[in-house]
């Protein structure tokens, strides 16, 4: 049955996470935006533990859901939780020590022994390089097998949590002449000789979170630290598939990143509506165009785009939960939510005039934080390429 309301447990999760955001994140939003410190905000240690405790109790619940039929599973849960936390603060969400972007990649393939050996995960993802940007297939970092160890060499930029994390999942090529198929990911604990954080970025937004440059110089890790299949696919078709495998993690992560924009935009809209309520304006969703004020008209437009983005995100996550191929939908959700989050938060700044632009309110911060969500995990333009190629049946050499 077609139903686009959230089930009870996800509604409860939203409520819980909103409380967490309101009580835990919002009170320290401005502080860590201003400080822009390298070190982990101290409050996040406790908040992270709280979150982890909540997660393990809720993941037990999921095990109880029926295995057949329609599923509202882990992807939707992650999406909903992300949205509610980013309603609080995207920067602090990204900085949360127990939510490393690399954690999922490790948990998906590591053996129980490895998990035990590697200890508590707070793993960053190191993909982008100075010369590649969105061009993940063109990675220059190399991994060479030397006896029982991989030797890593190269330079990574824009590593979220790269300074504060405990481990780094790094993408490197086994053979740069082989293109996409030779790209594999490696697990490197902090403190491994040869891996150095060389720089922490100063940014427009998400300043509570650290974004680092990491250099690998003859950095050695055990052979088993290659995550997944170490073989380089031989045929063109198999090569494509292998890289597709690496890229497919994006099908799961993109809706979650898109959910960040949905949460942030909701926060901007809620704050704007609160400020307008003080002026006596509320939305009643009934007037026609000829009766609206400019502000009402703009707000309805923002609300509509927000709904569109939110539902695209939920659909992409729902497809993942129900094992439907969702690559195009994941990109649609990221493309729409990415631009929506930026447009909504900027328009809210404009609507609220001097209050919107002032640091006395959080709107200007939302507008700064929002831009990166339309860039990382594949820019707007990359998402459009993916969507267009799929619809038009084109490959990457035809539609560049």
């Amino acid at each position, binding site marked *: 049955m077609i139903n686009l*309301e959230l089930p*009870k447990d996800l509604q409860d999760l939203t409520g819980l996470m909103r409380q967490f955001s309101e009580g835990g994140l919002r009170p320290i939003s401005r502080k860590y935006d201003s400080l822009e410190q390298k070190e982990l905000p101290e409050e996040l240690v406790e908040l992270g533990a709280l979150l982890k405790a909540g997660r393990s109790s809720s993941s037990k619940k999921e095990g109880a859901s029926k295995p057949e039929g329609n599923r509202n599973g882990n992807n939707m849960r992650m999406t909903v939780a992300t949205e509610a936390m980013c309603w609080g603060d995207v920067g602090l969400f990204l900085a949360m020590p127990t939510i490393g972007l690399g954690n999922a990649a490790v948990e998906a393939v590591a053996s129980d022994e490895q998990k035990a050996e590697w200890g508590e995960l707070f793993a960053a993802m190191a993909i982008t390089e100075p010369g590649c940007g969105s061009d993940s297939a063109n990675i220059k970092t190399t991994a060479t097998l030397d006896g029982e160890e991989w030797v890593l060499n190269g330079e990574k930029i824009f590593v979220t949590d790269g300074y504060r994390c405990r481990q780094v999942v790094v993408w490197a090529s086994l053979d740069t002449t082989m293109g996409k198929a030779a790209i594999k990911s490696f697990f490197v604990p902090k403190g491994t000789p040869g891996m150095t954080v060389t720089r922490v970025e100063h940014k427009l937004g998400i300043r509570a979170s650290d974004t680092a440059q990491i250099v690998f110089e003859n950095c050695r890790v055990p052979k088993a630290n290659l995550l997944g299949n170490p073989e380089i696919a031989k045929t063109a078709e198999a090569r494509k598939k292998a890289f597709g495998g690496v890229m497919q993690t994006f099908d799961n992560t993109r809706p979650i990143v898109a959910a960040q924009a949905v949460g942030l935009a909701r926060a901007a809209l809620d704050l704007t509506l609160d400020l307008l309520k003080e002026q006596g304006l509320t939305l009643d969703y009934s007037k026609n165009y000829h009766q609206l004020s400019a502000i009402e008209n703009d707000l309805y437009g923002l609300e509509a785009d927000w709904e569109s983005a939110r539902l695209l995100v939920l659909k992409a996550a729902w497809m993942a939960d129900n094992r439907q191929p969702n690559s195009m939908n994941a990109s649609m959700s990221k*493309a729409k939510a990415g631009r929506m989050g930026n447009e909504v938060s900027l328009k809210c700044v404009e609507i609220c005039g001097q209050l919107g632009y002032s640091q006395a309110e959080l709107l200007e911060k939302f507008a700064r934080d929002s831009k990166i969500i339309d860039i990382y995990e594949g820019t707007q333009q990359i998402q459009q390429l993916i969507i267009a*190629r799929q619809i038009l049946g084109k490959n990457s050499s035809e539609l560049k």
Partner: protein
Amino acid sequence: MSESAPMFDLTPTEEEFMTREVMRRFAAEEMAPKARAADEAASLPDDFLQKTVELGLNFMPVPEALGGVGAGHQPISNTLTIEDLAQGDMSMALAVLAPLAVINTVMKWGTSAQQTRVADTLLLDQFAPAAIALLEPGLSCDPANLSATAQQQPDGTWHLSGKKSLLPFGPEAQLLLVFAKAVSTAGESLGTRGFLLAPSLAGCSFTREQYMGLRPLPLYAANFSDVALPADAVLRDDFDLEQFLSLSRIATAALAVGTCQSVLDYVKDYVNERVAFGEPISHRQSVAFMVADMATELEGLRLMVYRAASQAEQGLDCSRMAYLAHRQAVKVGMKIGTDGVQLLGGHGFTREHPVELWYRNLRALAILTGLVVA
């Protein structure tokens, strides 16, 4: 929300799925191929309305006792049907759906005598035209504050006066459901109320209207001049204008979804086939990204429409989502209509291709409230 809130789900029921198959086939066979000729002729294909009777749409919501299927009010199923028929042709879809709008509204808010009258008049083997008259001529129309008035007389009967616009079938209709500001004998406004009547009554006159699009649909301006209506012509007291408008907004937005899907399907093939500068034009980012945006915005709109419909189906308050879905339908529909022509360039400007037809029809979305209901 209750404990029993169902899971998020985008899978239609088996019945909905089967109905879609029928509607889509009908749209593809009986509507889409005839849309151009109908537009040029500014009239519906000869046997079109009669053929729609086989779809049985009008029978669905009517109780079995009155000769219907007794499926009750099914906003989701209605929405899917509207989307599928619009994918064939928006004008033809509106013609089929106009009587259904009367039926749905009367089954929801009519007296049992009205329901019987509607069933007797419209559930026939012959297609029976009928339509709702809500909109009024002019730059803007506020359904909560109509110019047309129905003045209650001391004996309980009504005198209806005022002008309507964009009224399908007009004098050809078997029944009209006319909305007007009801005024009590004491001169108090009773708000917007619906009145069921035959267009043959004394005081009703009609003039054919011409619009930018929707040309096959026979649209009329109506003038009601002191039309005397019996006391029982009015819908029940519990008529809920906001809910009616919400259902209409959902339906109008669903028209947009279907029509935009046609545009997308058409341009997708065209840009792959059309070659310029040595390659299919789909190899150009400006072309490909326009198609990607179409698909993305259309999918977002579709989900908004489905969400509003599923809220209505579950008896939840759907006014916010219906309002936003309709608003988004207007915006997305206009953009896709325009981009469709642009992607075909000079060819898109000719009537050899259907994109210019969609360009014209999609402009109607902003002003169609009240013609169709989900």
